[in-house]
């Protein structure tokens, strides 16, 4: 059913339809609307769920860990500093192979403190063992939560999923979205049946001490499972299409005018909407440009990226995060996709933009396409203000 909803409301609606038995969260902007909506749904009796108001994000993650370990579907959401505060627990959730879906309302990390959008928070947790899906718009936000639970609880996967949505741009943006019906959701996402749980009828020990004799294998098992995730996401997306009509193809990447493209920008999240508009404008002028949207950042779909870009002469990677002291995070992955390969783009340039909520405009995107006519650049910051740099360096 088509509805005109705020992104946060859309998340709350789809989470309600997924019927988590335990919800726990701690307020942080721009995540707050999501859990406020859920709290109201529980208060109104629209959602039968235990809502645990915790004293910190660390405990929010711990509460949902405990709930899933007891065999109940759970949900939490956070952002920025809150996500970092959860970090220790997030590694535990994946390490204990507990299925869970969490929304990350992407926001910059302090210092300096900044509540606006970039993707530094979730990208910083890329090694935590969580599947990370980045949404371009609120329809994807809705669908990725549903896909996320289905994927996470698949008996062959049993890993948590982080649905990343750009803070404010998506969380506070109003869009027309197609909200699934309860019976459709029930069919696609059956009640959670755990493989193992804390149950007095069948006592088991979860989270034991693993010494050097077995720790390595536990990590290897997750690494191997991520390969399965790359196969499972397309399978689930195919089923999703047959049931809901929306086609995410392989669900790992989305190609936009790539086939004959001479220049392609690679990016994640809501900026892809802006890039598509820029691509449309340039295509109208006969310019062969395109976009490769990365949906699954973890696991990273290297072979899909290779297939998509191997014949493209010039590629620009646009990061909304940095890895201070190193090359930009997404750019590193794109370059890695061509490591040791014969076919490769002539140019893979890396740009960083939009940190701390700086607007990435159509002009910014045009600028990036234009820069691809020059020689390859690595880690060029777009839209820097020279006057502020002068101030910072006292030049």
């Amino acid at each position, binding site marked *: 059913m088509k509805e005109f909803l705020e992104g946060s409301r859309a998340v709350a609606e789809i989470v309600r339809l997924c019927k988590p*038995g*335990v919800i*726990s969260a701690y307020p942080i902007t721009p995540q707050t609307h999501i859990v406020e909506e859920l709290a109201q749904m529980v208060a109104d009796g629209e959602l*039968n*769920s*235990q809502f*645990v*108001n*915790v*004293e*910190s994000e*660390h*405990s929010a993650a*711990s*509460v*949902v*860990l*405990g*709930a*899933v*370990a*007891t*065999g*109940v579907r*759970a949900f939490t959401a956070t952002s920025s500093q809150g996500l970092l505060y959860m970090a*220790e*627990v997030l590694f*535990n959730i994946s390490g*204990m192979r507990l299925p869970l879906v969490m929304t990350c309302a992407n926001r910059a990390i302090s210092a300096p403190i900044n509540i606006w959008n970039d993707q530094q928070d979730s990208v910083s947790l890329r090694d935590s063992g969580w599947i990370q899906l980045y949404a371009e718009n609120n329809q994807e936000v809705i669908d990725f939560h549903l896909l996320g639970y289905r994927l996470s609880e698949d008996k062959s996967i049993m890993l948590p999923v982080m649905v990343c949505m750009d803070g404010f741009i998506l969380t506070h943006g109003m869009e027309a979205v197609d909200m699934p019906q309860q019976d459709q959701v029930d069919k696609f996402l059956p009640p959670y049946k755990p493989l193992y*749980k*804390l*149950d*007095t009828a*069948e*006592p*088991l*020990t*979860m*989270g*034991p*001490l*693993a*010494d050097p004799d*077995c720790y390595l294998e536990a990590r290897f098992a997750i690494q191997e499972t991520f390969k399965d995730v790359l196969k499972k996401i397309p399978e689930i997306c195919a089923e999703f299409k047959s049931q809901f009509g929306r086609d995410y193809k392989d669900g790992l990447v989305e190609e936009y005018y790539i086939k004959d493209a001479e220049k392609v920008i690679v990016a994640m999240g809501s900026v892809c909407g802006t890039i598509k508009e820029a691509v449309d404008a340039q295509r109208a002028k006969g310019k062969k440009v395109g976009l490769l949207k990365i949906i699954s950042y973890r696991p990273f779909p290297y072979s899909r990226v290779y297939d998509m870009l191997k014949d493209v002469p010039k590629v620009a990677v646009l990061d909304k995060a940095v890895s201070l002291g190193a090359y930009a995070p997404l750019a590193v992955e794109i370059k890695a996709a061509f490591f040791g390969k014969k076919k490769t783009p002539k140019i893979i340039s890396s740009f960083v933009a939009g940190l701390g909520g700086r607007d990435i405009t159509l002009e910014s995107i045009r600028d990036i396409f234009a820069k691809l006519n020059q020689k390859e650049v690595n880690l060029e910051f777009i839209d820097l203000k020279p006057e502020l740099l002068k101030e910072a360096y006292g030049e």
Partner: protein
Amino acid sequence: MENNPLFKPGHTACAGCGQSLGARLVIEAAGSNTVVVNNTGCLEVFSTKYPETAWNVPWIHSLFENAAAVASGVEAALIYLGKKDTTNVIAQAGDGGTADIGLQALSGMLERGHDILYVCYDNEAYMNTGVQRSGLTPFHTNTTTSPTGSKSQGNIRPKKPMPEIANAHGIPYVATASVGFPQDLQRKVKKAISIKGPKYIQIHVPCPLGWRHETNLTYQIAKLAVETGLYPLIEYENGQLTAVRKVTQPKPVEEYLKPQGRFKHILANPEEIRKIQEIADNNIKKYNLKAET
């Protein structure tokens, strides 16, 4: 119980470990309808080395500081499943995991009113990492991070008043117990389990390795801590002090200090012993521990 113990022998605790004794007493008193959430620490390490486990109840470990929060999630899930009325939830941790790094999560759990028994096994230092001081380390204790030296008599502060801190949350039940008084300990666990809401029990558990006493003295030393007034056994219900274990003739603290290497540096120093005696005397007065004769 003999045929199917809830906390099985064969774990790798040190000889004379007070915590393993305490953990067994607690779980046997609570019974098999119990889920245990354990923080990181000695107990987790010596009882769950994969693929072995000492636990015959559902048991989970996540992190050092979040047993109270994970237990909150377990309890919420049990309520959702309609199983809470027949299932006990115990969160347990050492003194560091309780009074220091885990205090925030514990306070949150107590404040929110979860139906959980939180047990603190108080061996008065970080034993798993090599005897470093914690917030529950007593005054004048020699630990590796509060060492004695020409300018130091060991730990410079008295124990953090954890039972009072827990009690300040206005929860239905707070108690201290000791492995030196196993029946009292088990009575308190059973009582706590029978009460709905958050409960806190702090159990004195000697650690031969960290306290540097003979491994066969665990029980006696635990008793002496109570009999000197240094570890008062008390009960609060709904914020009020309702019971204390009377000490007929309080023993001088020296008797407690003497067998323990961690206090060796003050044994020849009556002035420093007097300061510890004062702590015991204050406890005796504060909790009215002395029995009428």
